């Protein structure tokens, strides 16, 4: 089962703070960790498996031969960083992520032994994060229905759309961009403390726990496809 999920802001923020090397918010991040951060933010992006394999025949052959399990995995591991598109460019119902070449051009680096390191202000990194979040397929109707205050703000013209709100504020406020369904049995088995809470009646279900606390704590809603 493929579950869409966005790495929660508290997790992202804790990691960024661990990379902070000065009081002024300067970060010093191994470049490959920075790449990992970008991958995490791209995970909810829809990859059109059929289109991708056809548009990039070499990748299509690799998938057919089992070199890559899917177009999605190729896209996240390599494709995005090779400036490939996840779906047909003429599509208007989804937004392609900020091209990697643009991110790279804004990424200030220094060369250390054996590796590049990203040396940027936290605010600048979060600016890139926000622009990447514009490609998260926010469920407009669900978002408006779930966050009524946000819907009102959009209606008042404060934000162009739910996507716009999510990228600017919603993500850092730990809002969900779409409904994330919890795999109850897996969740309760994975997190014994939640199982006890459900057993004691403190929370009604794994789904409720994930909504109220689990997501922002960095818990997964279901089995990671690579676990």
């Amino acid at each position, binding site marked *: 089962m*493929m*579950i*869409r*999920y966005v*790495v929660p802001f508290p*997790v*992202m923020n*804790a*990691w960024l*703070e*661990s*990379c902070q090397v000065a009081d002024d918010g300067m970060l010093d*991040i*191994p*470049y*490959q*960790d920075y*790449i*990992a*951060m970008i*991958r*995490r933010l791209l*995970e909810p992006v829809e990859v059109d498996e059929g289109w991708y394999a056809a548009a990039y025949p070499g990748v299509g052959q690799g998938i057919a031969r089992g070199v890559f399990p899917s177009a*999605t*995995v190729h896209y*996240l*591991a*390599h494709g995005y*960083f090779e400036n490939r598109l996840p779906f047909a460019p003429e599509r208007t119902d989804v937004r392609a992520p900020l091209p990697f*070449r643009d991110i*790279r*051009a*804004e*990424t*200030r*680096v*220094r*060369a*250390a*032994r*054996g*590796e*590049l390191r990203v040396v940027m202000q936290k605010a600048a990194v979060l600016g890139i994060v926000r622009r990447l979040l514009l490609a998260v397929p926010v469920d407009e109707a669900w978002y408006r229905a779930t966050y009524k205050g946000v819907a009102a703000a959009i209606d008042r013209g404060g934000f162009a759309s739910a996507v716009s709100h999510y990228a600017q504020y919603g993500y850092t406020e730990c809002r969900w961009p779409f409904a994330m369904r919890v795999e109850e049995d897996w969740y309760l088995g994975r*997190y014994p403390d939640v199982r006890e809470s459900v057993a004691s009646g403190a929370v009604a279900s794994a789904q409720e726990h994930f909504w109220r606390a689990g997501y922002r*704590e*960095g*818990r*997964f809603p279901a089995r*990671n*496809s*690579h676990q």
Partner: protein
Amino acid sequence: MADTYVPEALLAGIGWEVDFRASGGSAAWRGAGWSAQEADGVWSVGPRSVLTLPGLPKDWPDDEAATLEFDLSPCLAPPLVTAQYVSLTLNGVALGWQRVEGPARIRCAVAPGLMRAGETSVLTCEHPGFVRLDRLGAGADDRPLALRVTEVRLRRDTGNAVPVAPPRPGSALLELIPFVPRLPADPVTYRLGGSGSPAAELRDGWHVDDDGLVWTAARVSRLVLPAAGFSPAVLRIGLTPLLTKDLLPAQRLAVVAGGMLLGQFSVRAETALCVPLPAGVGDGGIELIFVTPDAVPMRSFAYDRPEQSLGFVIDWIVAETPPPRLHAAASLRGDGLAEAPALAVSQRFVDVPTAELHARIEAELGVKAADLMRGFESLGDNCAFGLAQRKAGAEVLGLLRFANTPLRALLRGLGDSFKAALAKADIELYLHPDGNPREYMLKIARYGIRWHTLVHEPDAEAAAVERDQVIKLGFLRRKFEEGLRGGRKIYTLVRSEPQKIGVVMPGFAAPDTASASRGVTQLMPAWDPPRRYEVVPPPLTLAEAQAVLVELNRRGANTLLYFVPAAPDRPAGTVELLAPGLMRASMASFVILTTGEHANDFDWVRVAANAWLLNKDANAVFRQ
């Protein structure tokens, strides 16, 4: 190259000719090391090509000298690779060498008696400067090419009676140069950046950063090593590639000196490489060129020096000439692109069932497996061989048997005879962060080597452990040095210690691909347990093994056995003698568990048996 014109009048002076063009019949004379027939000749492939030559004509006087002529063209990739090196050996007798910069006829005298009437001769042609043009961005040809041969002929050498036929216009006439033995010389270490002497003169394509690291900063970086005062046979280069996991897991590196290619490497970790220098290179200083086709163009980033393309940090370069016993091993090209056949291969016991292995070894070799295993000493990089010895019943003392010794750390230790193991101030005791109970570990920061003590926290006080371990380390160091001087053991070298890396942010769709900054997992307790993954290191290359071998042989004639993954033609347990003093073992897996008996444990014993066999037979001359 066009046909060489041989005037009719000269034919009388020709013993025979082998025509390598499509119209000729050279296939019958070609042995190993040749590519397929092409219209205008045949290319040599790899470092060595062999010809079986016709014997002398029957009417050839026994006391008459001859001249061997080669018409050939070198594989070049100007402006970087502008020459090939060729040396010839006839029936085991070295004839000489030459540097070839274009179409040429190479001539060499063949002493009377070296070839015989009616008997074929074996001519071995060494050309270690072969080029993979595709890896230099100089075409699509993926063959390791050196020389395209058009004709080989034997000419009667009757003084001036028969004039030499001229090579075609534009083709040079070159006489082979006799070999002059290179005398052993202590290493000269060239400084790069900073202060000290002697210093490498950095020409174009370099960047020295604020930390003093010296970077190749262009696709082509040149430097000059001043004359060492002797004719060096090898260079050892300590370097670190700029890598990004997944996106740039390796960097290619071509090393060129004197217009000749010394190696085309694929480097996946900080390491040291040994590159042999052909005769004639380096006598009066060396212009060294590093070609880095995968260098990272910094203009892609927000970077202060966008014109740079960063490839490698070059830490040091050592020029040296090892003792004669190592010349053959040190002269092998170690980049792994193409290799000459091993001197000898032993594959005994590879198919023997594990239940019978020890008994069969004892029955056939007259030695118990445990005694066999005692004849080896591990240099690292981890405890695998030491554990294999234990499982075979061999408990031996070894300085590095239970140590973690990355290659560069090992070289640092060997380079100063592990003197820090005698200095209490240099030895640090600490507790391993994993495990319950935690194990006391030793570390010598000067080398970057860590040791297991096999003593755990509840069993002893730290001060007592430190006191005992310092004494033990000093004793082991003394035994190690004695072993090196004695030259009786075979030293084993593996690279299998995985790098353990924490995951930055676990994700859903993508494989775990990121490494963690220190402490990240502690900041995110919701990830229970903190997840880590292991990166399997690249297998050792011949060039890396050579770097260790040279260092290992400063004190005595010490054979090195290094391990690589098995291949279809090299099943687990196979050992090859690549050159006197240098063996290579094949293993299916380098993982060995501390407890239990597993099929893989026995491959170490198979390797030991085969290395033992080679050592007392084909490698015996090395130890004398």
